[in-house]
């Protein structure tokens, strides 16, 4: 019983560590990048949603090309 609990704890710790490692590598890749020529905006409001940042997705509310829609 005790052995299994120790084993279970070890497995959880290993999995958390693996996940953290994955997250750190992912984050460090992203830290080197910039959004370059894109500027922030908050337009395309249509009562129930917004579109954010100039990019290439068509804002369904306004027709602007944006980064994402909410």
């Amino acid at each position: 019983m005790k052995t299994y609990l120790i084993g279970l704890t070890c497995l959880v710790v290993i999995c958390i560590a693996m996940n953290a490692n994955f997250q750190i590598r992912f984050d460090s890749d992203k830290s080197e990048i910039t959004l370059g020529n894109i500027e922030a905006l908050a337009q395309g409001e249509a009562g129930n949603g917004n579109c954010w940042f100039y990019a290439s997705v068509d804002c369904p509310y306004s027709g602007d090309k944006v980064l994402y829609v909410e």
Partner: protein
Amino acid sequence: MKRIYTVVLIGLGFTLTSCNATAHTEAVVFPETISLQGEEKAIPDSVYLRYPFRVRLQDDILYIMDIHTSGYYIHSFTQKDMRHIASLAHRGEAPAEFLGTENIRIDERGDVWTLDANKSKIVKLAKQIDGQPVQINLDKELIRTLDFDRLNDSVFIVPDYTGRHRISFVDAQGGILKHAFQIPSSTEKESPIVLAQAWRSFISYNPNHGILAMATQLGQVIEIYDLKNERVVERIGLDEGAPWFENRGGYAVPTGIMGYSDIHVGQEHIYALFWGTSFEEIRKRPEDHKEGGRYVHVFDLKGKPIRKYVLDRHITGFHIDEVSGKMIGLDVNSNQPVVEYVFN
């Protein structure tokens, strides 16, 4: 008791380890993957490209479209040394000006065509500054036409937001000649306009063999149509790659991934530029997001996956030259956005 703990332990192990591996599910498997290194082509002149999105090469002249310009939407350069030649399609509300451009098409005579979705018109741009452009006002039945290609000298192919048909054919006066095909969604109860927004696609047509291909921006679906025989050739990725969206007040809000952003139908293959970034990731950290895709998916004309190119940087649009085996890409994240790849 021990057996129960063993089962729980193994199950937990599988669950936790599999969480790390499911960042994205590929809707298509390619038999070959090739990495490509790009070569930057510096623009020496002081032409500022804010968000270059389309590039075309014709007779050694490179045309680049900037969708977030404050001046001109299209600039031409000499391919050899990237010298600036001219700027076309001025932003503005005057009759001859543009409120946006969606794509560039160049005809056999070297004339440059573009589409202004906000003004609902297709325009042949004047070669001279004092020349008059040819403007084609699109039929009012079409809602927000977001891409176009030339079927022949006098007919254009356009998708739009009505959602009742996949594409429409319009004549040189902008009138609708006919419609063809349907949005391949299994969500039948959804509003057609919302479906059309979610299935917003980029198109490319090759008149030599009559193949039209469409690539979803908000999913991972490639549709291939044989326009000469008016038949569906293949729809790739329909099961796993269909766009994810929510209908919020009659608008399609994308909730899945940024899929394809450019497509080219060549003589033997179809090339599609794939991003694969989830909107969840983009929303969480927009300042760290890199615009563009690093994957060029290659299919044969029947839709069979051939290979995947993995690029050394993210690009938003491309020009493919199958004969020379070269690709010109646009890296919006760089101050020198023009990048050349050799793939043959």
